[in-house]
């Protein structure tokens, strides 16, 4: 847990829309450190029981089921609902001039993101997004190294990002709703954003393959290109992969583990050299820093560490990859003799019954 915000100042009135795992893990632990938070926060969830039970658990007075009809006037909103609701709900608050902090991804498509940003502009309200990995010291150092050009142009990037799915989602949304999409939107919302941020530009989609058989994928490979750089990404919800990045530049190779937020290695002419880029905190602590930053911004005590508009290129890349994606070859299904036998037997039985 990070230290309490200085002097625990009062909290502006905030609606937290969505009472699932993200609210519990990322948002309420931060908000409850502010004085008077029990009266300042309104919990919203379309499942009344969910909102009420979280309100009881965190000692919050106000809760309701409709974000368009809140029991108190709010000054800002945190959107932590399923992906496909982010844009619509953010726009509702932004148009009223209320600052919004939205869980990643900012939207499902580039068009949705544009609508959110337009609403922020017309409502003159700030919109931030929880792409907290931009705060990892090791990731920041990678960006500095690439952007400085000291190692020459980037030639090749490989990222392998996979862990067994263990998100304690309150609903079946992530696995059942086709709008949720699969591992690529879920994990790629972080990883592709970091990639775009490191490169300072938006890569082009060259190829994409996934294992979806009519619903949401658990495995996806994506090939991108950016200038002369080729980029290979692999995402999995099935197994823990190496979870590392390798960036080969003209004069050096930069490597690191995705979940090592403080260290990276650089190899130029000799053996790899380890760089300590900053304090080693847990990923929660970086996310909490960003939430505290949002509270400071709406209270007029600071500027955003980064804006939602900054992550827009990554959403466009993700959208294009999905549009281009084709299914992997899956010979263990397609050519399995037992599957063929079952299919033929079922057809024969059906024909027999029909006769």
């Amino acid at each position, binding site marked *: 847990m990070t230290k309490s915000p200085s002097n625990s100042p009062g909290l502006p009135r905030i609606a937290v829309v969505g009472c699932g795992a993200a609210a519990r893990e990322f948002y309420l632990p931060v908000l409850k450190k502010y004085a008077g938070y029990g009266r300042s926060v309104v919990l919203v969830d379309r499942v009344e029981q969910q909102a009420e039970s979280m309100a009881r658990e965190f000692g919050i007075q106000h809760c309701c089921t409709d974000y368009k009809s809140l029991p108190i006037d709010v000054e800002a909103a945190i959107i932590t609902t399923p992906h496909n609701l982010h844009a619509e709900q953010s726009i509702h608050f932004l148009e009223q001039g209320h600052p919004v902090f939205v869980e990643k991804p900012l939207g499902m498509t580039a068009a949705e993101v544009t609508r959110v940003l337009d609403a922020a502009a017309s409502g003159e309200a700030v919109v931030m997004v929880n792409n907290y990995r931009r705060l990892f010291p090791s990731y920041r150092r990678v960006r500095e190294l690439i952007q400085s050009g000291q190692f020459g142009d980037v030639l090749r990037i490989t990222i392998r990002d996979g862990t067994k799915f263990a998100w304690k989602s309150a609903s079946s949304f992530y696995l059942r709703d*086709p709008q949720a999409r699969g591992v690529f939107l879920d994990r790629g919302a972080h990883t592709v954003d970091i990639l775009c941020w490191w490169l300072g530009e938006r890569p082009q989609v060259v190829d994409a393959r996934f294992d979806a*058989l009519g*619903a949401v994928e658990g*495995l996806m490979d994506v090939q991108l290109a950016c200038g002369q750089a080729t980029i290979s990404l692999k995402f*999995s919800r099935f197994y823990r992969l190496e979870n590392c990045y390798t960036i080969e530049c003209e004069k050096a190779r930069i490597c690191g583990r995705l979940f090592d937020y403080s260290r990276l290695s650089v190899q130029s002419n000799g053996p790899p050299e380890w760089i300590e880029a900053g304090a080693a905190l847990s990923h929660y602590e970086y996310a909490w820093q960003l939430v505290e930053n949002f509270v400071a911004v709406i209270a007029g005590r600071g500027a955003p560490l980064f804006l939602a508009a900054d992550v827009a290129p990554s959403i466009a890349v993700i959208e294009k990859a999905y549009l281009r994606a084709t299914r992997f070859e899956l010979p263990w299904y397609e050519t*399995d003799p037992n599957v063929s036998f079952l299919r033929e037997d079922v057809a024969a039985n059906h024909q027999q019954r029909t006769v």
Partner: protein
Amino acid sequence: MQKVLVTGAGGFLGGWVVESFLLAGIPVRAGIRSWNSAVRLARHATEIVPCDVLLPEQIDAALDGCDAVVHCAVGNEHVTVTGTRNLLAAASQHRLDRIVHLSSVAVYGKAPGIIDEACPRRSKGSHYAELKIAAEKVCEEFIDRGTPVVVLRPSIIYGPFSEAWTVSFAKRLASGKWGTMGRRGEGNCNLVYVTDVVQAIYRALLAENAAGEFFNVNGDDVITWNEYFSRFNTALGREPLPAINTWPIAVKAQLLSPVRTSAKYALARFGRVAMRLHAQSSLAAKYMKATESLLKLTPTNEQLKLYGVRAKYVIDKAKDELGYAPRVGSKQGLEFCVAWLHQQGILY
């Protein structure tokens, strides 16, 4: 069949039953305990329902509209024994046409020789075998009352998504620290490819006179464990597998036994603290990774014993009475496994 409920559909075998049935056009409903286990099934536009076998109301809802159930759910004593009782009670109430219960050849307790369904059950100190025997006894109670239960006893089920017999061995072989084990590895490896088990399940659902019967389900290739390691190694395209001295492995297995138990306990109780330590201390991260790798690459005492057991589980009864015929030999099965391992990024 109107519709088949599969319990434990988030697991290795249950997942394969659902996927194979779906691909063949058999109406199926996947029953899961937690959404975390549903990533594989979620790739299909199929019906997935909560079905914790310890919650009778969930079972009742999951069975609604089904005329058969394939019971693959397994876990601790409560899940395996009480869960089976709960499921069979609900299945009786719903008057299902057929219940296929998945047991295991573990019920024979590593007895050597030619093992058919008439051989006695014995646990020989294995907790897993004890639970499987207890669940079979529950099935017998219901069979006596006229519930149409068929019990299948598969052997070593391997194939894509198998942690125990595919992923773990691939990693061991890829580590370069694994090899054939001389006499210790000359026991029979009774391999059965996962979709052959699915075929047996399908036939058990349909066979008219199978209710109340017990069947072994095994593959046709009966090879030794040493042969399995070598064939898998060849399929992975690696240099020929060396013979390794098994005494140090046996000693290591013995020494690591308490470490394995305490690591499991610590992770269950202090998982979050461990994650934090992992993130904050490179030394702790290095130590944890080394321990995890050592535990994964070293067989347990029980596994070492298994590699030496000379037992063959015969399938004549399943062939005669169910029409079961294994179709995937170890060569093709291992080719499927290797292609899948590469695609998953487990091997690269």
